[in-house]
């Protein structure tokens, strides 16, 4: 509440400053973001200029129409003793105010059509990225490079619930951003695993619905290195507001270095698959994986949400056959919100989380799954 009061005071101060000094104006305008970003791609700049053109047309029409209205409201009022006129028809006027808007629309429609055709031309791309929406994270695959990873929100719960002060990139920060090279034609292939999502980066003017079973495409040539943030733009369930998009645009050399680093990291994880772990190692890691990947639905205490997300505490799956438990995590449950985590998590992570779920919250099964078990399960053994 105190914060709120402070914010309200800040406004008043802000307005006072506006009146007092012109210098403060620029700063305030900066803080009160109110317009579309021109962005960093040729398309986004075209889109921005279309947006401003149509906006100024609207302002112009508004000034004329509202101007006549206000003049008439001021002059033609009974309290000034005016007698009403009786005209009520004019074919000429009707034709005129059909034709003029029509002409304006054609003037707007032609450049808009050009930009649209340009926006749809995804051919001759140099880098292809497959983007898959999940409830509630994004998976990125650089096609032809064998690099594939998930990108998830990292804003801590403490900040969301107001126990800690919020960072600058509150809700717009992820563990692993998508890295792309500048000045290359990048094609985004967009799809989804469960419900419809929408991948949106305002700075690229790229917004494409991610639809399960279908692949949409879009493209961008990023002209400036930088970090660009966006969000999922289609309601996709509970955590729709918590699956940001972060793209880091780098020089070609830095991009290549990132690719190499990614591949090395993937190889290291693959190696771990063969290594046996102790129960304590798995349990500790499982707790961390659980809070990252499972707690959004099944909740931190494993109690779930009755009627929507089943409880894991005392659940027949966690207390039953471990192979079935692994199967549920790896392949999901068809026709429900339980997704297949086989691709989202590494073998180590799945082994850890299964181990954790079977013992946490007084489930007390005490057994464990090794990464190699998960690997074998995936291979159908």
């Amino acid at each position: 509440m105190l914060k709120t009061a402070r914010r309200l005071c800040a406004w008043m101060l802000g307005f006072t400053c506006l009146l007092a000094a012109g210098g403060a104006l620029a700063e305030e305008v900066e803080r009160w973001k109110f317009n579309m970003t021109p962005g960093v791609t040729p398309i986004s700049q075209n889109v921005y200029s279309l947006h401003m053109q149509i906006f100024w047309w609207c302002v112009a029409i508004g000034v004329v129409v509202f101007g006549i209205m206000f003049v008439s409201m001021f002059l033609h009022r009974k309290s000034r003793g005016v007698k009403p006129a009786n005209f009520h028809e004019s074919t000429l006027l009707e034709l005129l105010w059909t034709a003029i808007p029509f002409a304006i629309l054609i003037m707007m429609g032609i450049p808009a059509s050009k930009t649209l055709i340009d926006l749809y031309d995804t051919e001759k791309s140099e880098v292809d990225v497959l983007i898959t929406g999940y409830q509630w994270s994004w998976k990125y695959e650089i096609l032809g490079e064998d690099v594939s990873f998930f990108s998830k929100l990292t804003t801590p719960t403490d900040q969301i619930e107001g126990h800690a002060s919020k960072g600058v990139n509150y809700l717009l920060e992820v563990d692993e951003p998508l890295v792309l090279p500048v000045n290359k034609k990048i094609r985004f292939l967009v799809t989804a695993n469960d419900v419809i999502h929408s991948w949106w980066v305002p700075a690229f003017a790229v917004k494409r619905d991610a639809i399960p079973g279908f692949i949409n495409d879009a493209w961008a040539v990023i002209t400036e290195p930088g970090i660009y943030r966006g969000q999922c733009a289609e309601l996709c369930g509970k955590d729709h507001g918590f699956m940001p998009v972060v793209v880091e645009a780098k020089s070609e050399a830095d991009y290549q270095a990132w690719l190499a680093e990614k591949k090395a990291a993937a190889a290291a994880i693959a190696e771990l698959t063969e290594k046996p772990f102790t129960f304590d190692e798995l349990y500790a890691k499982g707790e961390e994986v659980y809070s990252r990947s499972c707690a959004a639905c099944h909740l931190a205490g494993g109690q779930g949400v009755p009627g929507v997300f089943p409880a894991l505490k005392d659940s027949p799956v966690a207390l039953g056959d471990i192979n079935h438990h692994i199967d549920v995590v790896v392949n999901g449950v068809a026709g429900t919100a339980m997704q297949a985590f086989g691709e989202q998590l590494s073998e180590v992570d799945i082994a850890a989380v299964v181990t954790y779920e079977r013992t946490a919250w007084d489930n007390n099964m005490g057994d464990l799954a090794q990464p190699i078990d998960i690997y074998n399960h995936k291979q159908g053994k």
Partner: protein
Amino acid sequence: MAHGPAKGLTRWLYTTNHKDIGSMYLWFSFAMFFLGGIFALVIRAELFQPGLQIVEPNFFNQMTTMHGLVMVFGAVMPAFVGLANWMVPLMIGAPDMALPRMNNWSFWILPFAFAMLSSTLFMTGGAPNFGWTFYAPLSTTYAPPSVTFFIFAIHIMGASSIMGAINIIATILNMRAPGMTLMKMPMFVWTWLITAFLLIAVMPVLAGAVTMMLMDIHFGTSFFDAAGGGDPVLFQHVFWFFGHPEVYIMILPAFGIVSAIIPTFARKPLFGYSSMVYATAAIAILSFVVWAHHMFTVGMPIAGELFFMWATMLISVPTGVKIFNWVATMFKGSMTFETPMLFSIAFVILFTIGGFSGVMLAIAPADFQYHDTYFVVAHFHYVLVPGAIFSITAGVYYWLPKWSGRMYNETMGKVHFWLAFIGLNVTFFPMHFSGLAGMPRRIPDYNMMFADWNMISSVGAVLFGAAQLVFLYNVISTILSGKKATDEVWDNPEGLEWTVPSPAPYHTFTEPPAIK
């Protein structure tokens, strides 16, 4: 021969009187308006500042969904049907609606539909949480169990709307007083005639969409499930084929109300009556070929994208004609500014602003930035709140003296207007900015860069809500203890409704009136 209403509760249960049924529709809609308003205030309270303070994200989604459904199907549509029930027979000189028993039925199934819809809030898994547009598969495979009740409620609402529409068409086409040709009908009757045809055309499409959902959920079909060979985008096409005409269903009768009020208070006949009729018909026809402008980002082929962009831009032409005609009606009139006129003028100005953002949204490449942001939320609230809600409010103030025989309190009416006008703009204007700055819609929490706009919106929402309490009080105190109204009520208004006594007797026009 003349007899009054029956006594007691059964009067309302069994009534076939268009005035009784009209009043019930209006009160029902008023109740739903407050219910939907409470949902909206929960949303605005959560969005007052960044962070999750009041509700869980899942409940937040239930609120956005229920707010939309209740306002669209519970507040706006029944209010227009209520006004049609009261006013269409009075305006065309008919003794009642053509199908009075069906009229009773079409009202009385509504409370059950909304009782069922509201009861989902208390079910395991909660109320529908997939938005009022209920896109599959979020609303099928991933929906809470209550979705089945939601589907049934939608079916009942659809049946009610279709019956209401049939009744209105039958009344207008068959029961006009001798001499009242089609081109002599008041604009409100015209707009409702066209609206009723839209309703009959699209409510079955909505019924089809929810039935396919039902089949997908319970009977193993895969209309909207890609894994079974279906297509989630098919749902959106079917939904918006209903949905776009639906938004005109919520605005065309508003055009009619405003076209009745502005001439009265400008003391000058409506400018361009026939072009108004043609423009309304043009808007209605175009409304069937623009639906996919709600779906510019789903990945339609370029040809589809271009077609829907141009067709959508075209709609602004007949809409513009209407606006220009209202302005021309006011021009060189002799205006006074009673409450109905204030709401009507605000309608013209604010609806035009909503139209401007509509034209912006029609520009498909720009829509890639606007789509599913608060800019869209600002746009449709600017067309629906000043469009539908303000025109209904204007209509209530305009005709309440005829219905109740008593005059409302003008000062209180003006207070209501200014509070609502300021509240509305403070709530919805900043949403243009937060949307352009990049805030997606339907999110319970947001980055600090959107914080200031959201706080202003929330303050405005409280103001707007408070204004409606003034309205409620004014209506009740008018009915109970307002000053006696004259038969004409206003200064020489046009229309048959002003030729009957105030309050309008239980039965009017048992003998058809003479039309000049």
